[in-house]
């Protein structure tokens, strides 16, 4: 199965192709606000270099967030249109999961990866994943959200609260987040293994944020998307929704007449 991965829900944008042998081509432009320009040329480039036609692709995997709104919309608009035009399905990949999935070095069973992405306005998007087996294949399937955040599923509370920072003595703070809210009971399950922090929302520390793990990689989106597609997660392009986790900023103005003239 050949999967095109699209990652643009951050300040970067890129594409990757993954088949039975793994990632065969990957491009990434780490410049902000270039999504609408640079994504389509990269799609063409990876296909040409890998010697495949777009028509050979079996599914499109796309980072649907959480992330930067305009970027993730460029990625989703591209993925949905390409898939619709090719008559194939789309797999939505969570940015935090892709970030954890792409974390190196290979992790041991029980180890935890915490993905933290800068959500701006003093907030972050975050999720924790635990490695369930040492075998890579199993690791892939075993990284489940082991969430944190006031004992609730972080995707349920919408990340609206000023989440963050406390974590462990091993990691001082997460950048720009003020008080960390972290369920102490939930913490216990992590203390046994090593913790790895990844993402541009995590402050650099001894074992956090190796280079290249500031954002999800296009390769991780392609590989994880391919895993999901093999598990039957590809859906019709129209069925894929963005994961904003935040309502738009907009205020209803005063009613006419109520304001002083």
């Amino acid at each position, binding site marked *: 199965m050949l999967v095109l991965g699209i990652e643009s829900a951050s300040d970067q944008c890129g594409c990757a192709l993954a088949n039975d042998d793994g990632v065969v081509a990957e491009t990434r432009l780490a410049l902000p606000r270039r999504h609408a*320009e640079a994504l*389509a040329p990269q799609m*063409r480039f990876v296909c040409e*270099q890998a010697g495949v036609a777009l028509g050979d692709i079996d599914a499109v995997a796309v980072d649907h967030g959480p992330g930067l709104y305009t970027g993730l919309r460029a990625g989703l*608009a591209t993925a949905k249109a390409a898939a*619709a*035009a090719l008559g194939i399905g789309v797999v939505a990949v969570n940015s935090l999961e892709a970030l954890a999935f792409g974390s190196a070095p290979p992790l041991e069973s029980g180890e935890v990866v915490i993905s933290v992405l800068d959500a701006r306005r003093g907030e972050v998007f975050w999720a924790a994943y635990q490695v369930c087996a040492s075998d890579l294949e199993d690791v892939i399937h075993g990284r489940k959200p082991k969430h944190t955040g006031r004992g609730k599923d972080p995707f349920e509370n919408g990340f609206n609260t000023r989440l963050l920072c406390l974590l462990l003595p091993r990691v001082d703070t997460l950048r720009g987040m003020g008080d960390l809210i972290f369920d102490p009971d939930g913490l216990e399950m992590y203390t046994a293994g090593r913790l790895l922090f990844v993402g541009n929302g995590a402050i650099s520390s001894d074992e956090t944020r190796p280079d290249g793990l500031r954002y999800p990689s296009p390769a991780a989106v392609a590989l994880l998307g391919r895993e999901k597609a093999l598990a039957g997660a590809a859906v019709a392009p129209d069925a894929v929704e963005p994961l904003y986790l935040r309502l738009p900023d907009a205020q209803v103005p005063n009613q006419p007449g109520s304001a002083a003239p």
Partner: protein
Amino acid sequence: MPRGSDRAASIVISVTPAPVGAATAVLGIETSCDETAAAVVAGGREVYSSVVTSQIDLHRAFGGVVPEIAGRAHLQLLPAAVSQALADAEIDAPSQPPDAVAATAGPGLLGALVVGLSAAKALALAWDVPFVAVNHLEAHLYAAFLNGAGQSIPSLPMIVLLVSGGHTMLIEMTAHGRYELLGQTLDDAAGEAYDKVARLLGLGYPGGPAIDRLAAEGDPEAVRFPRPMLADGLDFSFSGLKTAVAVHLRRHPATDRAAQADIAASFQRAVVDVLATKTLRAAEDRGISSLCLAGGVAANSELRARFEALGSQDYQVFIPTRAMCTDNAAMVAAAGWHQLQRQGASPLDAAPNATWLIPTT
């Protein structure tokens, strides 16, 4: 030469372009503001389909277009608009895709433009057809070239009055793709003045259609509002007119519908007087007898009537149908077709440009 540059060069593919003719069907995509639109137009004229999904209901409570809400809505609404436009045009993609894909690349809201532009590029790439990045203002001019209401094709050169919520311009279109900006607003656009006066009258958003409807019941001579810069050149100014309405309302509150209708009608008369006078001045200055209306405010009843009346004089007047005056994708497809014929496809890395001016020569 480093190996890398050979590689880089290989991404520029030279494709022998298919001839662009009357049968060339272009899929147009428009997402620059608060309309999500897709259309298929052949030969830059024959409208096979035109789908416009308005987001007005989403923005009304906020009294204007909220960029983030618009961006989200475009992503949600565009796929269905494209499918519908293709289905209405009886185009069976992917087996028989349209011949090209054109999208608005600016001016407009960046977060909104990105959606349509990204989708258009992906469609063009997947179908292996040319992609065309279209200027939204230029697209408005091409509304007059669509085959609505059995109109004849506008004769060039012509003077175009382009009036919308964001722009008020007098443009000389000398030939396809050749424009000269003769005058424009120095402050508010005409449509903006409509929105602001509508707010003063408590008519809600969008203001244009609301004032147009109410004005029909009122006396346009009831209040003599100023005609800003009427005697003076080809530029416009509407901010003072809006203030004059506000001042008038403070002194004479419009307490009933009749009073409101008089103000709406008087305001509209002032706007139309200015727009028509300046358009005629431009035509006389340039010795051009072909006149054209474009943009959302061109859907206004009184403005249309005034221009239609000019047609019985010495002018040839081209007025698009109302549906083609407000934002739509058929005009984008038509402009895209002309651009494709004139200068070929746009590069796939064409950037969205929120402040793109109309390309002048």
